[in-house]
């Protein structure tokens, strides 16, 4: 069953010189218990898509299209319904736990605040549950940690506290925006293993935002590649390495240096990543694409179904990568 459905989402944000369109028609669906990975570079719109889902938008922005959660339109939710949606159905983890957790309150306050103020739990119930969830994310001596301040914990531990805070209640959808980007690789590995295990145990769905295609492919069922405010390719994570078709997806995979060998030269993508703000006729990636033809610069590509995915590329049906 579909838990979250985003249809033709557009977003205009306020800029000094007027308003600018940063999301240009995003479509996505998350099944109950499913996981999607939103991948892209700076300015692609992946974080704003997630913030739109949580209805946490920058002041002065205008949203178009539709976002439904269990069939309810998020934009049309009453304040009470919206509070219930955010406080008990959604969970959010961000890149920098130090910026997301109040530095002058103790870990225990942070963990129990939502349950006490929004869910109406008693102090003892919230506290007992906080001890349980800290233990569940592998933090030793949870009783003592409740009395610690965020500054006393390392980044990896603090991100575990963030994850623990999502376990206190039973959210149906986890929004994770670059949750391990600020962590060391070994910590990233264990934190992702933790998220993965807890998510599966609880049947919690996930929208995972990352700049790291390989990481997203390892923890998600479906990959959505974003560029300049649009989803340019959607495919099962297992197909990423062998069957991705969009020139941008392939170029991103090839631009990373390899761990198991050394090329003389990396296949860099020329130019810089475009954001949705750059109003382009035709395909937004065309200026950087080695396969672009005149038609690509004139015509905005629609989604073409390929296998069990979809690609926004006029040349999706051609075997661009077959020739040496």
């Amino acid at each position, binding site marked *: 069953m579909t838990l979250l459905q985003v249809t033709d989402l557009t977003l205009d944000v306020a800029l000094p010189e007027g308003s600018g369109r940063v999301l240009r028609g995003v479509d996505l669906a998350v099944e109950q218990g499913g996981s999607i990975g939103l991948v892209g570079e700076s300015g692609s719109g992946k974080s704003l898509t997630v913030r739109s889902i949580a209805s946490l938008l920058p002041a002065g922005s205008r949203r178009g299209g539709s976002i439904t959660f269990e069939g309810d339109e998020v934009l049309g939710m009453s304040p009470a319904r919206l509070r219930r949606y955010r406080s008990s159905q959604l969970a959010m983890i961000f890149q920098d736990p130090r910026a997301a957790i109040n530095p002058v309150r103790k870990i225990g306050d942070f963990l129990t605040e939502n349950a006490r103020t929004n869910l109406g739990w008693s102090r003892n119930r919230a506290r007992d549950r906080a001890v349980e969830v800290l233990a569940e994310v592998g933090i030793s001596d949870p009783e003592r940690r409740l009395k610690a301040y965020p500054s006393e914990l390392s980044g990896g531990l603090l991100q575990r506290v963030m994850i623990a805070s999502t376990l206190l209640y039973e959210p149906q959808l986890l929004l994770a925006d670059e949750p391990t980007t600020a962590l060391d690789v070994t910590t990233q590995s264990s934190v992702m293993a933790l998220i993965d295990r807890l998510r599966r145990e609880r049947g919690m769905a996930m929208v995972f935002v990352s700049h790291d295609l390989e990481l997203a*492919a390892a923890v998600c069922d479906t990959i959505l590649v974003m560029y300049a405010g649009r989803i340019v390719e959607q495919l099962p994570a297992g197909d990423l390495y062998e069957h991705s078709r969009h020139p941008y997806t392939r170029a991103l995979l090839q631009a990373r240096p390899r761990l198991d060998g050394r090329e003389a030269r990396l296949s860099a993508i020329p130019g810089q990543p475009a954001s949705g703000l750059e109003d382009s006729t035709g395909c937004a990636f065309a200026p950087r694409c080695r396969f672009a033809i005149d038609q690509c610069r004139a015509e905005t590509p629609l989604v073409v179904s390929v296998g069990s995915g979809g690609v926004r590329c006029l040349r999706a049906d051609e075997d661009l990568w077959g020739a040496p």
Partner: protein
Amino acid sequence: MTAPLVKAHSLRKVYGDFVAVDDVSFEVAAGGSLGIVGESGSGKTTVARMLVGLERPTSGRIEVGGQDCSKPARNSSGRWDRARNLQIVFQDPYSSLDPRQNIGGALREALGVAGLSKSETQARTEELLALVGLPRRVLDALPATLSGGQRQRVAIARALATQPRGLILDESVAALDVSIQAQILNLLADIREETGVSYVFVSHDLAVVRHVTDHVVVMKSGNIVERGETGAVLDHPQHPYTQMLRASVPGPGWVPGGGVNR
């Protein structure tokens, strides 16, 4: 083989009770490229900062181009000598450039140390821009109007201004988007080929280190736990810590949490 450019012998750095770097020794060949790999708190950045004189070692010896650099230079000519030996490029191109100084000013200031004439400075500025692939018009631009990748090119150009024999690159591509990171890595390879400059590449990213270095040292808690040719160390890591680092990198068939499959 020529004499090494950098010789670090038994470096140690202590802050209060905390030993940040302990008994670290390595050499960087003239024209060579050494990777220093490790995670937060491994001491890799402290080593980089000691090499360029931003930190003073508690004990141990640093020799650059045959000169002892373990202690601060006595006078400006001593500092100038060192500036010609090693320069550093930092991680964050947003905070490493003065926001109120235009790019031309930043490059001229670095060149000014060399005591060049006005026309020589102008010619060298243009040479530097060409070397890092930036158009002339950025000379009048402030850093705020440039992208992250362009700023990092400026930082590299500024570091190369004194024609140093070695560059210390401290996580210099970590903050860049993947597509831009590849451009800068190719640029660094070109610059090394063109100028013969040596690199000390400090990074947590094993794939990046593999791409730009010949030799590597792996640091953990202030110590070097493994060293060797980069390819050999990454293909056949001997130390359990290096093995764990290697196993933590996502890729085809990877599962988080230590299941290794590549």
